[in-house]
């Protein structure tokens, strides 16, 4: 077992990594299995299979049927769930410390899913309902539209949920093959945070997962193409508001200057930000934001907002004005300090809760390959200065043409 700044790590003989953060000041513990596969690791014919499989892992194993899985979770009083993203699938539960072993055993059993054939079609109906519900949401529609356009031809282009067509066509045998290829000790990581003794946690992992087969990690990912310049419109009368979003290339999730990007995004469009005071509080639009989407090999800065369609020109002008100012004059010491202060409180809050620590750990372990302690993250944010943000802006400018995406009832912009 190896130790690094607040964490303990162990690798079982079959290749399963176990990462533990002991939190002696709390009374609960959380655990989760990270499976290093997501929507971008699918082929077009299998679009949506990672997410569908995540659902199927709740549907039966050699030891439990779906009913027993849910009963066992609820008998622990667990706060549990799973999610699938573009780059990962994560299954987790948060329990009283004394129930940690039972929680790990249950999650581990799900990772050996039998993908029961008699549940496959029923669950497919659930996913198709989920897709329909997602299509009724403006923010989900915009998110999917952006990916479809800027990553056209690449695996990041299709929705995590897949489409009615792709999910409708999936077969149980295809899922079995995908499962065998990705759900093994060599492509998964067990992460634990909470009031646990690391030696006990490793013993639990050995006992429960030690007999799992190893395997080769997921195939290497193909880097997406450089973010294009241009514009795209999805005109639809389904929504009352119009969304406009400027997209610019930005640092990836692994890039050392991602903290600069995050602080700048917060200064521009976060809480108490320039967008808030100079756009929202001028009555132009109720929601205006700046944020990043970051993947392991590429990132994107999004600057945009939701507005009434007739206010599009005003919103566009206001966003471009603020972007112009930050590009020309950078940010101030005071602005950077404000973000740092908020982050310090957020990190202290996170340190009280094994659930929230687990969610941050999975992000760090998946993207950076290792967990980061609260103090390391404070140090990283402390290193950000107006100068480092200026250097970031020179590397990743936001003042150029970028890619403009528009969704809503107006035929705008003219393409």
């Amino acid at each position, binding site marked *: 077992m190896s130790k690094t700044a607040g964490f303990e790590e162990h690798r079982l003989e079959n290749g399963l990594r176990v990462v533990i953060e002991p939190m002696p000041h709390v009374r609960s513990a959380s655990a989760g299995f990270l499976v290093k596969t997501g929507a971008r690791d699918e082929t077009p014919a299998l679009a949506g299979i990672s997410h569908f499989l995540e659902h199927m892992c709740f549907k039966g194993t050699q030891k439990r049927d779906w009913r027993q899985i849910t009963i066992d979770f609820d008998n622990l009083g667990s706060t549990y769930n799973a999610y699938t993203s573009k780059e990962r699938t994560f299954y987790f539960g948060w*329990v009283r410390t004394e129930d940690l072993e039972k929680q790990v055993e249950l999650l581990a059993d799900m990772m050996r899913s039998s993908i029961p054939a008699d549940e496959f079609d029923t669950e497919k109906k659930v996913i198709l309902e989920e897709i329909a519900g997602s299509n009724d949401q403006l923010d989900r529609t915009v998110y999917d539209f952006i990916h479809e356009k800027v990553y056209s031809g690449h695996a990041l282009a299709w929705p995590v949920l897949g489409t009615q067509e792709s999910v409708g066509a999936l077969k149980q045998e295809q899922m079995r093959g995908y499962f065998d290829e990705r759900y093994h000790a060599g492509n998964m990581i067990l992460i634990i945070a909470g009031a646990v003794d690391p030696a006990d946690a490793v013993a639990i992992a050995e006992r429960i997962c030690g007999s799992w087969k190893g395997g080769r990690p997921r195939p290497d990912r193909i880097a997406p193409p450089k973010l294009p310049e241009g514009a795209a419109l999805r005109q639809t009368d389904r929504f009352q508001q119009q969304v406009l979003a400027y997209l610019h290339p930005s640092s990836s999730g692994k890039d050392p200057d991602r903290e600069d990007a995050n602080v700048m995004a917060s200064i521009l469009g976060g809480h108490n930000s320039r967008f808030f005071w100079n756009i929202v509080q001028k009555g132009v639009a109720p929601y205006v934001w700046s944020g990043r989407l970051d993947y392991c090999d590429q990132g994107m800065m999004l600057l945009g907002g939701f507005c009434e369609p007739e206010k599009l020109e005003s919103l566009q002008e206001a966003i471009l004005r603020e972007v112009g100012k930050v590009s020309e004059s950078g940010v101030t010491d005071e602005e950077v300090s404000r973000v740092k202060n908020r982050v310090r409180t957020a990190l202290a809050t996170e340190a009280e809760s094994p659930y929230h620590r687990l969610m941050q750990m999975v992000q760090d372990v998946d993207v950076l390959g290792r967990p980061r302690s609260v103090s390391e993250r404070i140090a990283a944010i402390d290193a950000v200065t107006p100068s480092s943000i200026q250097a970031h802006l020179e590397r990743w400018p936001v003042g150029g043409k970028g890619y403009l995406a528009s969704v809503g009832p107006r035929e705008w912009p003219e393409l």
Partner: protein
Amino acid sequence: MSEEERFHHERLPCGVEFAALPIAGRRTATFEIRILAGMANEPSDKLGIANLVAESIDKGTAKRSGQALNDAFDAIGAQRSLFAGREAFVFRCTCLPEFVGQALALHVELLRTPAFPEESCAVAIDLAKQELTALDDEPDEMLRKFLARHGYGEVLGRHTFGTRESLDRITGEDISAYWRSHFGAARMLVSAGGVVDVDRFSEALEARFEGFGNGTGDGRATFPLEFSPGRRHYDKKLEQEYIGICWPGVPKTHPDYSVEVVLLAVLSGGMSSRLFTEVREKQGLVYWVGAWNEHPRGAGMMFAGASSTPPNCDKTYRSLLREVDRLAEDISEEEMARAKVGIAAKRETHGDATSSRVGELGADLFHYGRPVPRQEKLDKVMAVTIDDVRRYLGEQPRDRLCVVTLGPRPLEDQAP
């Protein structure tokens, strides 16, 4: 658990009711200020004004601009939120322990000396109208709005943003007048927890809120709940039909509240619960299905909801009704035990977060007028029997339901 729960509770001479739960070993402090006034106190021709007060109260004070005030909060890293609820404005703040005094002082400043700048008030009104447009793009929130309107009636069923017509009638002076007539020490419930020095906090409250407000009323009266059963459909171009059902439950102070808590857990507490199992897992009719309850002071309302595509929506509706009714027929000891374990375990796990504990304390002050030890609440839950559940269901008939659908077509099923 008992070692942690050393509550402090007092009514200060200034009129503020204060409760605290210091918890050793935490990293943060959280406090919550509830002002006992909200949407239910709005003049009927000025709906939406409570939200406008919440949106503009931190946009400037007697000595600082809105931006300077927000910068001052950021200087100490305070994480805060505020909103106007049905019966209370809620101000929440979490910060590092060394900044509690400053965070409280800034709240005092915005609560006692808001400037309500004319421009900020005008923007708040304009943004509220835009929020009404945005609401149209959020089917879940629209469903809740319609359910509240028919389930609670005219006063308790008001929506945050009011109406375009009512917003047109509101002026900056109206916003300021609402604050003057409803904000004051006598209407304040303050709860604090985590790493907090109770004596210093209490002294600061007394010193800073003495003489605040005109002392008109204490905001502790209840408002009329006007339940209106029936079926209503709101047509909207959507891929799914959004279904909501509600019926009166019991207030938190009712002896059967614990029974309702257990019943709700059986119905919708986890993935093994009845709604998830029967509507989603067995039939694949929905992705979202759930049940929940809400509690205005002195009242209660039970809700069930789901969304599904038009070919499935009638079956989904029938399944929702069937599962609620079936509880009285065949609820099992095993389900009861599972529900209780879930309630107990989540209290413990979620209680690791200071903000969660303070939120619970604030709600207890609001509903019970005192801090309620978690063990006391848990003991009541653990004592609930199957007979209690059956009796509760018999005494709370569901033959008159309020049903709302939002989507491409009304339900074909005519029952009930």
